[in-house]
C-alpha cells in the first residue's frame, strides 16, 4: 500500500470508504441546514401572529420591523428546504454515501473502478454545496420559485427577488451537482459490472447493490435532462432566448419573448424530477432489505421478485413524469396515459412491501436501532405509497394537486422513507465506517422520537389537503375556506420542532461514538455479506490478503441444520458445520 499523508487520506482521498464518510458528513450538515429552514417556516405557519423580532440578528431584513417574516423569504425557505433535502441530503448524502461505502465492500472489490473520478465526484458536490450555501446569504435572497423552479417565475427577477442572483447561483450549483452525480453514477455502474469478485454472480449480489446499481442507471439517464433544462433556462435568463417564455407583461413592460412554453420546462424538469424520487427511494429500500434480513435472521423473501420489481420501477420511472402536470394545461389524453403508467408503477412497490412483510413472518427479530428505522421505513412506504394512488389518478388530482395532501404524501414516501433508510444505513454500517459501535439506547430514543414525530408532523397534513388547503402559502388567513386549521398548524409546528430537536440525539451519538464508542467486533450483526469479512478498520484496498471468493447468495440466514444461524457468502458448502441435531 502506498504512503498516505493527512491530505491524501482525509481530504483528497481516493479511498471509497473515506469518500463515503465525506459524503455522509456533508449530507448531515446539509440535513441540519435544511431542517432548520423548515423550522423557520413552521414557526410562521404555526404562530403567524407572534413577533419574530428575536430572529432579526440572524435574518436581518427578512424580518420586518414589526417582527414578521417576509413573504418572499418564506418562499425562499420553502425552495431551499426542498432543494437541499432532495438533492444534497437524499441524493448525495444517501446514495453518495452508501454507493461509495457498500459497492466495493459488498461485491468484493479493492476500490471503485476509478478512484480519481470518485474523488472528483465528491469535490464537484462540495463545490456545488459551497455555491448553494453562498446563495443563502446574498442580498436579494436565495432562489424562491419553489424547488421545481418553474419559469417564468424563476426566469424573471421582476417577478420575485430570488430569481436574480439567487437563481443564478442555484443554476450554477445544480450544474456542478449534476456533474458530480454523473461522475459518481458512471463509476458505480462500471464497478458493479466489472469488479465483482470471483463467484459473485449478478444474482448473488446483495439487494443493496442491486438498488444502488439501478439508482446509478436512473441517475445517468435522468440527470442530463435536468442539465439541459437548466442550460436552456440560463439562455432564457441571460441570452434573451425564448425557450420557456412567451407573451409576458410584467412590471409595466411587455417582454419581447415569444413562442416559448413554460410547460416544456415542466416536462424536462419532471423527466428528471420523477425518476429522482426513485433515485432517493431505491437506495433506502436496498439498505432496508439488508437490515431487515440480517436482523430478522431470515433470508429475504423473494429475492428475484425484489430484483425484478426494482428493475420494473427503474424502467417505468421514466414513463410517469407528467403525473405532476395533470392540471398544467397539457393535452387531457396525456393525463390518461400518465394515470395508467402511474398506477402500474404502484404494483412493483406493493410487491416490495409484501416481500418485506413475508420476510418478517416467522423470523427471529432483533431490534437494533437500524432494524427499527428499517421497520419505520416500511411503515412510511405503506402510508405514503397509498396516498399516491389518489394523486396518480388524474381526476382526483384535479382537487388534490398542489394542496397539503401532496406535501403529506411525498414527505412520508420520499422524505421520511429515504431519511429512515439513511438512518438505518448509518446505524447498521457505522461499525464498518468507524470501527466502533453507536450507542444503542440513544439510538432507541432517536428512533422513537423521530418515528412518532414524523407521523405527527405529516399525517395531519392529509386532513388539511382534503380540506383543500394549497401548499406554499405564507398564511391561510386571507381565505375563509382555508382558515379552519389553526390548531392543527400549531400542533404540526410543535411536533416539527420536537422532531428536529430529537436529531441532536443522533448528532451527539454519531460524533461521540466515532471517538468514544465501544470498539466493534469484526461482524457485529452476524451478517452474511462480504463487507464484514474485512478487518474491523479496513485499510485502503479493503482486504489485507486475497479478496474472498463467493460461494453462495447473500442471504443464508437460519439455514436448516447449520450450527450457526448465518453462513457468510465466502464459506464454501463443505466448510459449513452441521449441527448435531
Amino acid at each position: 500500500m502506498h504512503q498516505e499523508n493527512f491530505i491524501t487520506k482525509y481530504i483528497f482521498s481516493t479511498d471509497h470508504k473515506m469518500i463515503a464518510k465525506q459524503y455522509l458528513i456533508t449530507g448531515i450538515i446539509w440535513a441540519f441546514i435544511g431542517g432548520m429552514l423548515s423550522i423557520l417556516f413552521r414557526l410562521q405557519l404555526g404562530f403567524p401572529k407572534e413577533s419574530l423580532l428575536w430572529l432579526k440578528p440572524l435574518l436581518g431584513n427578512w424580518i420586518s420591523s414589526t417582527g414578521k417574516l417576509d413573504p418572499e423569504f418564506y418562499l425562499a425557505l420553502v425552495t431551499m428546504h426542498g432543494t437541499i433535502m432532495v438533492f444534497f441530503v437524499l441524493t448525495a448524502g444517501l446514495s453518495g454515501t452508501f454507493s461509495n461505502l457498500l459497492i466495493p465492500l459488498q461485491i468484493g472489490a479493492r476500490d471503485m473502478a476509478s478512484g480519481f473520478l470518485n474523488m472528483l465526484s465528491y469535490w464537484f458536490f462540495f463545490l456545488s454545496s459551497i455555491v448553494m450555501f453562498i446563495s443563502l446569504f446574498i442580498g436579494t435572497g436565495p432562489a424562491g420559485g419553489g424547488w421545481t423552479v418553474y419559469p417564468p417565475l424563476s426566469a424573471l427577477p421582476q417577478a420575485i427577488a430570488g430569481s436574480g442572483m439567487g437563481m443564478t447561483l442555484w443554476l450554477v450549483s445544480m450544474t456542478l451537482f449534476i456533474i458530480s452525480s454523473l461522475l459518481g453514477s458512471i463509476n458505480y455502474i462500471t464497478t458493479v459490472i466489472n469488479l465483482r469478485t470471483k463467484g459473485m454472480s449478478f444474482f448473488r449480489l446483495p439487494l443493496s447493490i442491486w438498488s444502488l446499481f439501478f439508482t446509478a442507471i436512473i441517475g445517468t439517464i435522468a440527470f442530463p435532462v435536468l442539465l439541459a433544462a437548466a442550460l436552456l433556462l440560463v439562455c432564457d435568463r441571460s441570452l434573451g432566448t425564448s425557450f420557456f417564455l412567451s407573451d409576458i407583461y410584467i412590471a409595466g413592460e411587455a417582454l419581447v419573448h415569444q413562442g416559448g412554453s413554460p410547460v416544456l420546462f415542466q416536462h424536462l424538469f419532471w423527466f428528471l424530477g420523477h425518476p429522482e424520487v426513485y433515485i432517493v427511494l431505491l437506495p433506502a429500500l436496498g439498505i432496508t432489505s439488508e437490515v431487515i434480513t440480517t436482523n430478522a435472521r431470515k433470508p429475504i423473501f423473494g429475492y428475484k421478485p425484489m430484483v425484478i420489481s426494482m428493475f420494473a420501477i427503474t424502467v417505468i420511472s421514466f414513463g410517469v413524469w407528467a403525473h405532476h402536470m395533470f392540471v398544467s394545461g397539457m393535452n387531457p389524453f396525456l393525463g390518461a396515459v400518465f394515470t395508467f403508467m402511474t398506477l402500474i408503477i404502484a404494483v412493483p412497490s406493493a410487491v416490495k412491501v409484501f416481500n418485506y412483510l413475508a420476510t418478517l413472518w416467522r423470523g427471529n427479530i432483533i431490534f437494533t436501532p437500524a432494524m427499527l428505522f428499517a421497520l419505520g421505513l416500511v411503515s412510511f412506504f405503506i402510508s405514503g405509497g397509498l396516498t399516491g394512488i389518489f394523486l396518480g389518478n388524474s381526476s382526483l388530482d384535479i382537487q388534490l394537486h398542489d394542496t397539503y395532501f401532496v406535501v403529506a404524501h411525498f414527505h412520508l414516501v420520499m422524505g421520511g422513507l429515504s431519511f429512515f433508510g439513511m438512518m438505518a444505513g448509518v446505524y447498521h454500517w457505522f461499525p464498518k465506517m468507524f470501527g466502533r459501535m453507536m450507542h444503542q439506547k440513544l439510538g432507541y430514543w432517536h428512533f422513537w422520537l423521530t418515528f412518532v414525530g414524523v407521523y405527527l408532523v405529516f399525517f395531519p397534513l392529509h386532513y388539511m389537503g382534503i380540506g383543500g388547503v394549497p401548499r406554499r402559502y405564507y398564511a391561510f388567513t386571507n381565505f375563509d375556506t382555508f382558515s379552519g386549521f389553526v390548531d392543527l398548524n400549531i400542533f404540526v409546528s410543535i411536533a416539527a420542532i420536537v422532531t428536529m430537536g430529537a436529531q441532536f440525539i443522533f448528532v451527539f451519538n454519531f460524533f461521540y461514538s466515532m471517538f468514544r464508542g465501544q470498539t466493534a467486533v469484526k461482524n457485529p450483526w452476524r451478517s452474511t455479506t462480504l463487507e464484514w469479512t474485512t478487518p474491523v478498520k479496513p485499510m485502503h484496498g479493503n482486504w489485507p490478503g486475497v479478496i474472498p471468493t463467493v460461494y453462495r447468495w447473500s442471504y443464508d440466514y437460519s439455514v436448516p441444520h447449520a450450527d450457526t444461524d448465518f453462513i457468510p457468502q465466502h464459506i464454501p458448502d463443505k466448510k459449513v458445520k452441521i449441527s448435531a441435531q
Partner: protein
Amino acid sequence: MFKIALIIIIGALVLVASVLLFKLLQLLQKKKSPPKNNNNQQASLLLSFLIIGLAIFFWYSYTRFSQYTLPVASVHGVLMDRLFWITTVVTGIVFITTQTLLFFFSHKYRFQQKKKATYHTGNLTLEIFWTIIPTLVLTVLMFFGLKLWNTITQPPKESIKNTTVIEIVGQQFSWKARYPGKSKKLGAYDYRLIDPVNELGIDFNDENSFDNFVSNVLYLPKGKPVLFKIRSKDVLHSVYLPHFRVKMDAVPGMPTRFWFIPNKSTEDMRESLQNKNFNFELACAEICGRGHFSMKMIVKVLEPEAYETWVQSQKSFLYKNPTYLKKVPVHLQTKAKKKAGILH
C-alpha cells in the same frame, strides 16, 4: 397559545437535553448498566404504537369529519368526491391490514433464544398472487378515474352550445374575469396591448371586444355549464376553486380551459351551512411570488335569472373607458359605440 406552545417545546427540549446529559454522564463514568432485555421492550413499543396510532387515526378522522371535508358545489365534484371516498375505503383497508401485519409480525416474531427463523426464500405462487391482486384493484380504480377524467375534460357536445364562456386572467397578485356582453363572444387580446387601464390587453380591432366587460368578482350561473378560458399575464398561476373541485394552471402564452357545471348557489350554501357570510373563493394554487397566498377572488353563484340580470346591468369596458374608442378602427366606430352601450 404561543406561550403554551413555547412552554411545551422548551419542556420537550429540556427533557431531551436532560436525557442526553444523563447518558453522557453515564458514558463518561463508563458505568455499565446490567444488560436488560431491550428486545422485548422494543417489540411491545412497536405494538403499542400500532394500537395507539390507529386509535388516534380513527378518533380524529371520525370526530373532525366536518372540519376537513369541503362541501361540494359542482356536478363533476360530486362524482369526484365519490371516487375519492371509494379510493379512501380501498386504500384504508390495505393501510390497516398491512400496517397491522407489519407491527404484529414485528412483535410476534421478536427474538427468542431457543427459536430459529424459518428458512423461506420465497414462493412463486404468493408472488404472483400479490402482483395480480394490486393490479386488479388498481385497474378498477383507474377505470373509474379515467371515466371521470373523460367526463370532466370532454364535455358533451349538446351542452357546449349553451355554455357561458368566461375568461379568467391571472396576474401578480390578483384575478380578473372578462365576460362577453350580449353578443356572447369574447374578443381577441394581445399582451402587447396591455396598459394600466386595459389590464387584459383587449384588442379593439376585433368587434367581439366591444361589449366585453371586466369584473373583479366572479359571477357564475347555477345549473348552467361554464367554460373558463384561462390565461396569465406574467408567471404561472393556477385557477383553483376548492368547492367546485376545479383547478387549472394559468400559463402565459398558452391559454387553458376548464368546463364544469356549478350546481349550488351562494345562497344555497349559506343556508345549508347556516353561515350568512359564506362565499365561494377562487385561490391561486401555483407558486407565483410574494403575494401567492393572497391571490383571492370572490365567487358568487346566482340563480340563472339573477345571473342574466347581473350581466345586463354591467357596463362594457368601452363604456367605462371611452378614450379607448380611439383604438377602434374608423369604419367600426358606430358599431362599437352601439355595442358598448354608448349609443342607443
